């Protein structure tokens, strides 16, 4: 049976403010000695009262605006009770009933196309400290206590690990450019809610939550592991899935149960009487909107979200032809990060040997994609791919034919091509009609559909010929 993955995310982001959320202690960094950035308030001493840091509200609102949220004019704080030595008051101040932002949306561009992820809410809260274990004793470090966080909660709208990572990269790039957070190591932490269900099913499967991961790579591995565990349980009845909280063990690459519904503690949330409700009136909202940094280039943001490096983004943004080529092969199904490497490293390197630059690149998207997809499928290795690429750039060879001629491919079956072309023609009657009515360009859409269907396996030249034949 085919299964669909359903994921919702809770992402904690440390805000870049000069002081903590409820006191005037300065921001901490790894360079600080333990308990350097601590005052009676953030270490839970009696007599101190929390006083709201206005900047936290402004940054949370800015984040909400960036994620297309409703900004709630009335917002309040609640206390969440639990005992842990790194939590000096034995409660965390957070928002439960009236979060600052709700109902947002963020659009992702992935290999599966454009996807909307709904944001359920953004709320403000304070971070906890940390424990340092050494020898016989454990020590408490309150430097991080009361550092301001926003938690961004999505609806269960993700369908793959790739989408999750794209989303996280997008948040990271937005928040950096918006001055909301530096998103340094550990400053962005995720809880992943995950379930699987038979494809086509409406009902959600049993959900597990993987807590507190900060590396995107770990998040991706954890999702793959957990999804497989769920599918095995459903398919082979290896175990009974229960709603529970799990943690990801980086070394073994496995998730382990932490606590389930029965052993979950009651956090006894209730309103914090020390903090008056915050009213965000129109004047203040306008002020925050005015201070919001100019919209960052959407395209750069998408590249960043796709994991392309800043240096590569600069090259792409400054060269429209190159970025178009990248966009085209990504649309055909190539991973953006791989596409960037093929174009900006391999093609550029080949051209450089002849004293040329990327401006001289003439390779077509179809030919480039033929190469990258052969590598992706494992038909050929990357070195072979590069050889073909050199031949294309120097002599404009046909990649598939060249590959066969040089014996670089291990497996290639062209017989499936014709069936696929027929299927595409049957499914795209409008394009077919357009073509027959003289709109020659309509063939591009059909060609693209064939390539997608074949996952790039076909010889572009052959497909084009057969396609033209069939359309006559």
């Amino acid at each position, binding site marked *: 049976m085919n299964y669909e993955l359903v994921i919702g995310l809770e992402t904690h982001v440390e805000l870049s403010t000069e002081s903590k959320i409820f006191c005037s202690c300065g921001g901490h960094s790894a360079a600080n000695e333990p308990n350097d950035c601590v005052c*009676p308030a953030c*270490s*839970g*001493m*009696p*007599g*101190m*009262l*929390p*006083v*709201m840091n206005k900047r936290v509200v402004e940054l949370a609102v800015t984040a909400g605006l960036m994620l297309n949220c409703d900004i709630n004019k009335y917002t309040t704080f609640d*206390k969440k*009770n639990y*005992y842990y*030595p790194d939590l*000096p*008051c*034995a*409660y965390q101040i957070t928002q439960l009933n009236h979060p600052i932002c709700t109902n947002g949306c963020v659009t992702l561009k992935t290999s599966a196309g454009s996807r909307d992820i709904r944001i359920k809410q953004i709320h403000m809260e304070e971070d906890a400290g940390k424990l340092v274990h050494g020898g016989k004793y454990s020590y*408490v470090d309150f430097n991080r206590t009361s550092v301001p966080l926003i938690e961004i909660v999505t609806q269960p709208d993700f369908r793959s690990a790739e989408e999750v990572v794209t989303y996280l990269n997008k948040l990271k790039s937005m928040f950096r450019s918006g001055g909301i957070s530096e998103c340094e190591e550990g400053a962005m932490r995720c809880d992943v809610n995950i379930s699987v269900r038979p494809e086509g099913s409406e009902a959600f499967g049993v959900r597990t939550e993987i807590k507190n991961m900060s590396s995107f790579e770990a998040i991706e591995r954890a999702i793959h592991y957990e999804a497989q565990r769920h599918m095995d349980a459903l398919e082979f009845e290896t175990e009974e899935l229960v709603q529970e909280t799990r943690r990801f063990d980086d070394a073994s690459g496995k998730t382990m149960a932490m606590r389930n519904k029965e052993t979950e503690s*009651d956090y*006894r*949330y*209730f*309103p*914090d*009487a*020390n*903090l*008056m409700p915050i009213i965000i009136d129109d004047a203040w909202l306008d002020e925050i909107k005015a201070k919001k940094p100019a919209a960052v280039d959407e395209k750069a943001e998408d590249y960043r979200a796709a994991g392309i490096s800043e240096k590569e983004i600069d090259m792409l943004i400054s060269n429209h032809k190159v970025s178009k080529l990248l966009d085209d092969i990504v649309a055909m199904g190539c991973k953006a990060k791989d596409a960037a490497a093929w174009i900006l490293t391999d093609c550029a390197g080949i051209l450089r040997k002849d004293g040329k630059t990327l401006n001289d690149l003439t390779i077509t998207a179809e030919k480039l994609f033929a190469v990258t997809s052969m590598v992706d499928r494992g038909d050929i290795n990357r070195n072979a791919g590069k050889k073909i690429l050199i031949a294309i750039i120097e002599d404009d060879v046909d990649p598939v034919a060249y590959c066969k001629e040089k014996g670089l491919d291990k497996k290639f079956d062209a017989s499936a091509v014709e069936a696929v072309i027929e299927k595409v023609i049957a499914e795209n009657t409008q394009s077919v009609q357009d073509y027959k009515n003289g709109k020659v360009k309509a063939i591009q859409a059909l060609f693209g559909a064939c390539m997608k269907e074949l996952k790039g396996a076909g010889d572009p030249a052959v497909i084009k010929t057969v396609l033209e034949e069939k359309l006559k």
Partner: protein
Amino acid sequence: MNYYRTKCDGGNIAVDDTILVKGMEASAGSKILEGFKPLFSAEVATRLESKGYNIAGKTHVGEFGLDLLGEFSHYSEKQDALKGAAAELVAQGTVKAALGVDMNGSTRRAAAISGVDFLKPTYGTVSRYGVISCAASGEQIGVYAPSALGIKEIMDVIAGHDDKDGTSLRNESYDYTISDAAGKKVCIVKELLEKADDETKARLNAFTDGLRAKGVMVEEISFEIFETANTAWQILMTAETCNNISRYDGVKFGHRATEYKNIDELYVNSRTEGFNFLTKAVILYGSDVLSKNRYADCYDKSLKVRRVLCEKFEKLMENYDAILTPACSKTAYNRFDIHEAFGKVFEESVFTALANLIGIPALVSGGVQLMGKHFSESMLLSLADCVERKGE
């Protein structure tokens, strides 16, 4: 009785042990805070010192101010006839005035028993910065003094906005002017009068006569909100107290158990040894009303009751300037067992809880209590003053 007794004359002020003074140990009467020395002074102490007053010392309080008058302090001997330490010090003339945190009525009862005045001001008018906080939504620092005039003097110094307290109202100062009360209208609440013993009733009658002699109109009415107010406040107060004192866990400061094998035992043993029976009862009650399946019926409902009763009170105050009630049911209390404390305090708080619940001012004078709408301190002090200076 005060354990930081220094020279006490003229401008000496005592503060109770839930209010921090830099350098002086602070315990809120509890073993759990044993040895804790605050790094800063409460805003009220700083303001008094800046105006030339001397914080002469601290007075014992019952653990976290949860008891009747202050009888269950970890640090003081229980007397046979119960008295509040701060109120007694003022009654003896040892200090000019004293400050106490009004949370569940112990301050007002103590003032009534010792025959001194005590004002619990409108919520948000006096900074709570430096109070060992329990019930944040209704506690407020108040003043003990021999007379209404004495209270006015101290309130003029300590009231007004403080940036360090998020619940502090924006006003820089408030009006505590004492003026002629003739022509004012006061009502006596029948339901509360019925709960008081004969001596208390006699005090109330004497106060009423005093008011009438100065041209104040007094009449008896029925106003049945006090039982409900008390229940709602006990729910909010225990819940907030349970939460606020959960930070006393033996990890950071104060008492830590010597015997423990892991962190859970450290918590449990330290807290078991550190809190008295009454505090433990409050913790249990408070965690229960906050628990998932009780929250809507208890805590949330109490918040709604708070709003409704506030409106009802304001409605009544359209016809009267103040209400006159007993501050407690008796004129003296004898020693009793701590296992009875929770119920006993609950019963007696029926007189005091409304003021904490809805944040209105309450003034104890002549062993009775006056309450008025928000910011009516000036009126309450004027009414008390006209009775206190009846010969003039």
